[in-house]
């Protein structure tokens, strides 16, 4: 089921004779249970796009539909949107986690009773139980971020917008937020996620969209994109540099040798090469795999 559909979004800012196109042409689709990693360098238009989707910035042209409703025309669309914007600054610092959850639940349209029930459930689920009476300003950054995500889920939205959800978190908190994002998507919610940590995007997303200078330059399923950019070469890493005799034999097969690393582009010769190497100790052996960082850079560095 399609939860988010954004078509030809465009936004230009004008100030004192300066014209700046933040978003030139962005179209996105997101289905239930899907995680879309929305990547791009600083100033590429990620945040403007997310805010146009949330109804916080009015697009100059194009339209947004969330669960079949336009957030710029129909406030009921907002019931389907949860958002954690700009890091962890989405909470009242002078209130406790439970007070924040209850307040924002009612603000997003829940009755008091339902808000209380949801807060209790989310506090348990997000493992904030022993901090329920601690003021938000005294929580760790990781806890604050978990609470901000919990707050965004209070009204049970179908679409969750997460702007840099792991920024500034330590390793443990990052793992915990990653686990939560996977769980939330598994419940059937659509998640649009921006991040500069490409390894996290690679781990969490089903699909990747890269935006550069206000335009989407590529949008593909994550695995497909990585496959396209990976070639069929094998890399063998030895413990010690290869001796001259074996090196010349392997080179004769068509592989390349650089000290203790052997690159085999033709899979047909793999086993012949391994025969030559026997019984030398092998440290690692595997297919050469592109990662999202290489792919991302290849798109944003294009002239």
């Amino acid at each position, binding site marked *: 089921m399609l939860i988010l559909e954004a078509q030809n979004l465009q*936004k230009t*800012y004008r100030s004192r004779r300066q014209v700046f196109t*933040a978003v030139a042409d962005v179209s996105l689709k997101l289905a239930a249970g899907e995680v879309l990693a929305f990547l791009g360098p600083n100033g590429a238009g990620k945040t*403007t796009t997310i*805010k146009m989707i*949330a*109804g*916080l*910035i*009015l697009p100059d042209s194009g339209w947004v539909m969330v669960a079949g409703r336009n957030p710029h025309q129909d*406030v*009921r669309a*907002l*019931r389907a*949107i949860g*958002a954690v*914007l*700009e*890091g962890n*600054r*989405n*909470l*009242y*610092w*002078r*209130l406790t986690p439970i*007070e924040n959850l*209850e*307040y*924002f639940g*009612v*603000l*997003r*349209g*829940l*009755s*008091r009773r339902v*808000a209380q029930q949801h807060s209790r459930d989310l506090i348990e689920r997000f493992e904030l139980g022993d901090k329920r009476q601690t*003021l938000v300003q005294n929580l760790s950054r990781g806890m604050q971020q978990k609470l901000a995500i919990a*707050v965004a889920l209070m009204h049970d939205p179908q679409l969750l917008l997460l702007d840099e959800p792991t920024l500034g978190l330590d390793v443990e908190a990052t793992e915990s937020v990653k686990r939560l994002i996977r769980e939330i998507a598994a419940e059937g919610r659509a998640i649009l996620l921006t991040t500069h940590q490409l390894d996290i995007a690679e781990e969490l997303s089903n699909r990747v969209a890269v935006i550069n200078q206000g335009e989407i330059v590529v949008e593909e399923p994550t695995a497909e994109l990585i496959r396209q950019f990976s070639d069929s070469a094998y890399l063998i890493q030895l413990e010690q540099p290869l001796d001259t005799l074996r090196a010349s034999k392997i080179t004769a097969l068509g592989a390349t040798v650089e000290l203790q690393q052997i690159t085999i582009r033709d899979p047909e010769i793999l086993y012949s090469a391994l025969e030559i190497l026997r019984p030398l100790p092998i440290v690692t052996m595997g297919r050469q795999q592109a990662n999202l960082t290489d792919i991302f850079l290849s798109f944003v560095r294009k002239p």
Partner: protein
Amino acid sequence: MLSLFLAEFKRSFVQLRRYSSELIGGVVGTTIIFYGLFLSTQYIAGPGFQFGTRLDSIIVGYVLWALMLFIMGDIAGGLQQESRTGTLEQLFLSPYSASTVFLLRAIASLILNLTINLGILLLIMALTGSRLAFPPTLLPPLLAVLLGAYGIAFAMGALALTLKQVQQVLSVFQFGLIFLFTVPVESWTGSARFLGWLLPMAPGAGLLRGVMAQGAALDWGILAVALLNGAVYFLAGVALFGWAERRMKRLGKLGGY
């Protein structure tokens, strides 16, 4: 709507109770400033001088001014603080309109603000020996003043939303407000009298001074003017706030950066 009102009330109350030192500071500070002014005026006038109902009138004006500052701090100051802490955009994601949220928020904290300002009033009365009356007829002009006060606070909220940094404007504006609450528009005559009716909150404040300080009966004609004045400023303030919200959504600057 009732749920949101109760949630706003709880939010205001919890924060006020948790940071009661700020509250006590506000009450004591506001009282001391007035007492300082009172002592210096007494010094200039000489020890034998009797202020009479004029002192009472000034006290009413001063406390209304303090109330206005609390209300403005709630709406315009609150808005600015929320744009700094990042909660502002979350308010605009609510299915309730932003004006509704801020209005309910303001009404929720009104009960607290009225209590605080009654405290300030009683303290000032105790310090200066003023004797003010509290007849039930003070309620309609108080309503007129509050309507105007909320209108002005929403207008300043619109300014806060547009400019983000309005601390300096607010400080200067506060002194302009003293004028509105202390100027004796009820004694003006001729065309100045009409001008007095147009000033925000001034006719209501004049009635309150009459009722509370001079023991006058309520002039229903002026009350109608005061209520109309309050309603116009209130609606204009809310409309201006809605306009600022739409403008900021168009300019992409709702959050504040």
